[in-house]
């Protein structure tokens, strides 16, 4: 769709299509927000920029599209693995299973170290408050600031809303903080190299893979592998039981636990905040911010999945039931902050929360050449001319998601007008002679 948008990364894909199951229907090409998929020779193919949102995975009725997670982590070496689950995991086992039970279940599975994220999430909330209070009064402060937490949203901004990159505070996410601190503290304790320890993230979505391999906001990720909640679910469930155990692995209050649902992150930020979830709504709001609206808001929590991470493609429990479980946990643990402001302030002043990427948030000043602009205008004119020839039925039968995109593909030489199923009729109607 975007002619001028630079491809920000090589197409390493964590969404894969099994052609033997694909029957070439149009559901995925229509669902894709970046219009990256086409049907070619009767099969779906990812040709454009994939932001790992998994909308195609969700709509595919034949399960031909699957999201994948980590390849290489030797699970036999469990004693050197630090497991750090998304807080969504706590919502997946019913209302009587507490976060500590889930973490103990992971321990019983044989993993060396189990690190909870919800407590760090509460710390991160305070870091966001500090950052915003420090920066919002500056002239031309990029308000509203945008949460760096959802990797799909970050990819979406990098691909379609580049001018909003500077709205993302240069803070590292709780999952990265947990991984970094886990490794460095264990290394110091055992007198070993930090890289002896590997961090496995249990995730509701495959987009964490992207953060690990080619993050936009960081030079280096501290996570080593990710595994879907659904992959580990069965074995973990068998290991969760009522046996009395006095090891306490979970320390947060309700706020840290609520992060898995939409509005959970901002529930811990005492500023003027807004939570938006779902890809369609996210795009609508990013468009608004890009034309200068919502400047009276300090911070927006965007989550690409509807209802937040609970709606991730790797979850097992339905998002609304999961939400109910989390809400119950929030009531049980209360909304008092468990972390101390002074402690976080000290860490903040030491630079503990800042990413290692220096210029990532500065708007890339891309000086475009006049030739490129002239070419862009000419291309657009040709696309509009082509579009006039099309029936605007938006059927997708040609293999492109809609008539506009088809006109682009024809203009760029990637498709022929003959693939439009209405083309014969159109030729007659418009009096076009062969």
């Amino acid at each position, binding site marked *: 769709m975007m002619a001028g948008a630079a491809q920000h990364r090589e197409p390493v894909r964590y969404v894969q299509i099994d052609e033997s199951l694909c029957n070439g229907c149009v559901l995925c090409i229509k669902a894709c927000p970046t219009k990256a998929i086409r049907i070619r020779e009767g099969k779906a193919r990812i040709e454009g920029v994939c932001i790992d949102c998994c909308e195609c995975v969700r709509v595919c009725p034949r399960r031909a599209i699957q999201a994948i997670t980590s390849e290489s982590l030797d699970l036999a070496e469990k004693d050197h693995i630090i497991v750090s689950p998304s807080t969504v995991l706590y919502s997946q086992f019913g209302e009587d299973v507490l976060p500590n039970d889930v973490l103990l279940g992971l321990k019983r599975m044989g993993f060396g170290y189990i690190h909870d994220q919800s407590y760090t999430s509460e710390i991160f909330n305070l870091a966001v408050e500090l950052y915003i209070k420090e920066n919002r009064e500056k002239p031309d402060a990029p308000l509203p600031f945008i949460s760096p937490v959802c990797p799909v949203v970050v990819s979406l901004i990098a691909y379609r809303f580049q001018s909003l990159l500077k709205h993302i505070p240069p803070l590292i996410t709780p999952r990265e903080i947990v991984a970094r601190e886990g490794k460095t503290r264990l290394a110091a304790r055992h007198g070993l190299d930090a890289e002896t320890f590997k961090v496995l993230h249990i995730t509701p979505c495959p987009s964490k893979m992207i953060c690990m391999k080619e993050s936009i906001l960081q030079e280096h990720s501290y996570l080593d592998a990710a595994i879907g909640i659904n992959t580990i679910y069965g074995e973990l469930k068998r290991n969760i039981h009522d046996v009395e155990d006095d090891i306490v692995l979970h320390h947060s209050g309700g706020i840290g636990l609520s992060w898995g649902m939409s509005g959970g992150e901002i529930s811990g930020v005492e500023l003027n905040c807004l939570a938006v979830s779902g890809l369609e709504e996210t795009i609508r709001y990013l468009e608004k911010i890009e034309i*200068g609206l919502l400047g009276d808001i300090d911070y927006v929590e965007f989550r690409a999945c509807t209802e937040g991470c609970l709606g991730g493609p790797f979850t097992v429990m339905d998002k609304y039931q999961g939400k109910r479980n989390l809400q119950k946990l929030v009531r049980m643990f209360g909304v008092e902050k468990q972390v101390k402001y002074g402690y976080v302030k000290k860490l903040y002043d030491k630079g503990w929360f800042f990413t290692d990427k220096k210029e990532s948030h500065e708007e890339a000043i891309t*000086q475009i050449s006049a030739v*490129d602009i002239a070419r862009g*205008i000419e291309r657009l004119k040709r696309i509009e001319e082509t579009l006039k020839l099309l029936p605007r039925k938006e059927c997708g039968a040609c293999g492109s998601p809609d008539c506009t995109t088809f006109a682009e593909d024809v203009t760029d030489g990637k498709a022929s007008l003959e693939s439009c199923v209405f083309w014969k009729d159109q030729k007659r109607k418009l009096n076009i002679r062969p």
Partner: protein
Amino acid sequence: MKPGGLLKKYSIKPRDFVKAGEGSIRIQKFLKFIGFDAGLIRRISICAYEAEMNVVMHGGDGEMSMLVDPKEIVLEVADDGPGIPDIGLALQEGYSTASPEHREMGFGAGMGLPNIKKNADSLDIHSGNGQGVHLTMCFEVKTR
């Protein structure tokens, strides 16, 4: 139309708050599509939105047009509403004629024209009592 240029037109309906801002978002998408620099697009979109909202709130039937050229983008917003009696006053920071009803909807912080002046490379206003408003905003395209 200048050779090489491209003209786009969108109509603006007064008091249509549901569709308000759609023209600006289309302009923004359109400029992105061509491949202009994000900062320039942002400035143009902000101006388009402010001008569009002025028509929706105070104006009559209006039209927004944009002429895109590799060197310059000209945005014009015109309507046949009551017009601006005192342009100098309307250009002052903080001055607003928004009704309490508009303010409740979050509009009318008096940012309209001053915000356009700040973001456009040049601004030309033609108006008077009962004469509608005709804004012409120009943006220079900086290329290497």
